[in-house]
């Protein structure tokens, strides 16, 4: 008896000692410094970037594909695969001279044929492109190293939408773009510093350095400038559980968490072993079903807006003030060209008593209201729960309806699917791309004032004029039409181990120019 008791005690002591010694140590990387492991919280649904706005796809494929133009750290549009951009006098067409000697991953040189095919396909697939450039826009080759965009009317946001970070116009070989099936391309050949090696389903996506890459010469800034693949192999590992992500980061299995869970932000921030960077992600809004929902008049919607306490909502959804901003404007706070906080006196009032009174005066008499959200996005779900509470205090007879992504999509397409829905709207390059202000969704009901304003905005002579129109439009939207209620803007968070250097983020993690090691 005594013998085994002593054995247990000794083992416990050893275990404890090892544990304590291990606790303080820096994460010991489990792989060489020529291998980078990035933890992705969700598996991409497709690798065809032109087809989808989904973030996991974007995070991975932005290293594989490049675009004609892109944005720098100040959100200015600069050339990427283009060498020069010329705007026509009437601003209805743009000429893009292409850089020479840029090669695809299959060795072939990029020519205007490839660009034309890629841009044409993108125009077909991207609602934002169609809305800004007009669906009759065309891309035409002018010799092997120049492409011309011809539009029916000027569009001040044309270059901006072509430089977008989500569902971006990935340049691929003409044959692939032209022969793509409706379900998407099946080979992923780009011009980026990394090329796709393998997608091991439900496990990881493996990229490797493209030795034939042609880099720009300017210093890196945002997405622009020189991109170097400084680490040979990059693995985007799919890890859906936040605890496992953290455990992997701590033990050096993962070098970077692409988007850490908000629950872990505080812990990561306060720990000394990690670098935490945040990046613009998007807005949390509550969109009304204007066409078929209960809140069919502006008065009712204004009433609800009056009763919403956005700061409570954002606080519950994101926990730490570092990762969100309370703002009234519909564009991102980091977009000086478009952002305005005008109309802030209608924002974050939280006056549920007056709101309730106003609702009744506007003709709401307790009809049942469906608030739709998706439970796969914790922050959407949490904001919905708080909003539900606030609506109840306004005297609204509200039921919460939730489902997974697929269910949510189906219900949002249903004309009677909801009266209010949560939405996470990723940052866009100009206000005409804000989906909830457009007519692409059956229930949004675009205001004619807005439709008119959007046309004027695109036709504006320059960004200053466009902005003025937008400021007035936003005022109208906030005080009168109220198509959505703005909760606030949120950031995504990346965490990296201390031996990761040169890691930057912009609308997500940027992998090129990153290195590993103690230097």
């Amino acid at each position: 008896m005594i013998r085994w008791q002593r054995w247990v005690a000794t083992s416990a002591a050893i275990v404890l000692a090892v544990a304590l010694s291990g606790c303080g140590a820096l994460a010991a990387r489990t792989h060489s410094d020529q291998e980078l492991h990035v933890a992705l919280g969700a598996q991409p649904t497709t690798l065809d970037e032109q087809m989808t706005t989904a973030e996991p796809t974007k995070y991975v494929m932005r290293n594989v594909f490049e675009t004609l133009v892109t944005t720098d750290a100040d959100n200015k549009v600069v050339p990427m695969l283009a060498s020069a951009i010329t705007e026509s006098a009437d601003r209805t067409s743009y000429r893009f001279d292409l850089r020479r000697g840029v090669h695809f991953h299959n060795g072939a040189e990029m020519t205007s044929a490839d660009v034309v095919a890629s841009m044409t396909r993108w125009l077909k697939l991207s609602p934002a492109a169609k809305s800004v450039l007009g669906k009759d826009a065309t891309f035409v080759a002018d010799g092997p190293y120049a492409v011309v965009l011809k539009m029916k009317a000027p569009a001040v946001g044309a270059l901006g939408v072509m430089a977008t970070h989500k569902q971006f116009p990935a340049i691929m070989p003409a044959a692939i773009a032209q022969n793509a099936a409706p379900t998407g391309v099946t080979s992923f050949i780009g011009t980026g510093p990394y090329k796709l090696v393998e997608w091991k389903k439900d496990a990881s996506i493996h990229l490797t350095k493209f030795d034939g890459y042609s880099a720009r010469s300017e210093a890196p800034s945002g997405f622009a400038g020189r991109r170097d693949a400084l680490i040979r192999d990059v693995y985007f590992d799919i890890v859906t559980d936040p605890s496992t992500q953290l455990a992997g980061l701590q033990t050096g299995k993962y070098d970077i968490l692409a988007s850490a869970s908000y629950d872990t932000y505080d812990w990561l921030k306060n720990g000394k072993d990690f670098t935490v960077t945040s990046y613009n992600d998007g807005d949390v809004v509550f969109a009304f079903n204007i066409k078929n929902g209960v809140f069919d008049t502006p008065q009712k919607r204004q009433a609800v807006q009056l009763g919403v306490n956005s700061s409570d909502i954002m606080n519950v959804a994101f926990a730490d003030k570092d990762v969100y901003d309370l703002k009234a404007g519909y564009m991102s706070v980091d977009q000086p060209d478009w952002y305005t906080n005008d109309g802030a006196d209608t924002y974050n009032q939280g006056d549920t008593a007056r709101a309730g009174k106003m609702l009744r005066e506007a003709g709401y008499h307790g009809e049942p209201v469906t608030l739709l959200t998706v439970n796969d996005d914790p922050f959407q779900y949490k904001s919905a729960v708080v909003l539900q509470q606030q609506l109840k205090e306004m005297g609204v007879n509200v039921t919460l309806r939730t489902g997974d992504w697929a269910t949510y999509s189906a219900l949002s397409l249903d004309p009677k699917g909801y009266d209010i829905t949560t939405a996470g709207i990723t940052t866009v390059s100009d206000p005409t791309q804000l989906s909830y202000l457009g007519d692409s969704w059956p229930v949004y009901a675009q205001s004619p004032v807005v439709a008119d304003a959007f046309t004027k905005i695109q036709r504006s002579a320059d960004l200053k004029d466009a902005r003025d129109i937008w400021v007035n439009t936003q005022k109208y939207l906030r005080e009168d039409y109220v198509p959505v209620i703005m909760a606030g803007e949120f950031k995504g968070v990346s965490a990296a181990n201390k031996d990761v250097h040169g890691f930057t983020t912009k609308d997500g993690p940027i992998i090129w120019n990153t290195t590993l090691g103690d230097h």
Partner: protein
Amino acid sequence: MPAYILRRFAALIPVLLTVFTAVFLVVHLAPGSPASVILGQEATPQQITQLNSDLGLDQPLWQQYATWIGHAVTGDLGQSYFLDAPVLSTIVDHVPPTLSLALIAEIIGIGVAIPLGIIAATRRGSLLDRVILNGSLVGISVPSFLLALFLLLVFGVWLRVLPVGGYEPLSSGFFTWLSYLILPGIALGGMQAALITRMARSSVLEVLGQEYIKVAKAKGLRTRVVVLKHALRNAFLPVLTILGQGLGSLITGAVVTETIFTIPGIGTLVVNSVLHRDFPVVQGTVLFTTVIFVLVNLIVDLLYGVFDPRVKLPSKR
């Protein structure tokens, strides 16, 4: 015997058909379509409708059903909407991790649980017996995800002795393969093991009270022989049932463990394909897991015939 086995396989078909039809209906009738998941939250309704049509999802339900069954009997399970690969090869790719995991979990279950159960039974009433009983109660009560996270934290993060999730195939080396499976195996097999321990204990206790055990002792056989040969062989039978059931559910339902330990197995495949409305994969996986279940049941029944001579299987003389 071969006739018996053939008949059991024939009985598989109505089972498959029923299960498959039920799942097909549920998955297709639930709201949501693969197109919206592929295209993302900001796609337009037109785009979604168009893509669904391209995927053949606007055909009447019975037609989609018939087409899929028609292909399935020829071995063509279709193409996954998301994973850009044939369904069959996708399933086959996801099987080894789950199978390995289930195997390790079952071995841990058997290797740990049965001896513990025997020890508890032969030392009934002692401190050791009570420790084992209470320990197994804890094992049954602790949710597997909690156990998984706990194991991950202690052995993966604090002690750094085992990897924090992931999977390496057997081709990477036996010990490497094993090291990735120990923690999830314990997490997954923990509850099973606890159940088996209790079952083994009560089964052995019951057998030990039988007359033939006394006779075996009266014959002058040593205790070890009495317990391991005479008692165990009889006590094993009820345990076999639990093992069979357990293996079936291990293979099909290790989702939580697979998620926490990032093992790309069948459980992950099923859940993801349901969430994505990847219909061909859902259908294919259901077919596959049903076959597995029935197969495991058949094997257990056959094993009963092997272990217990009183069980007369048909066509056995």
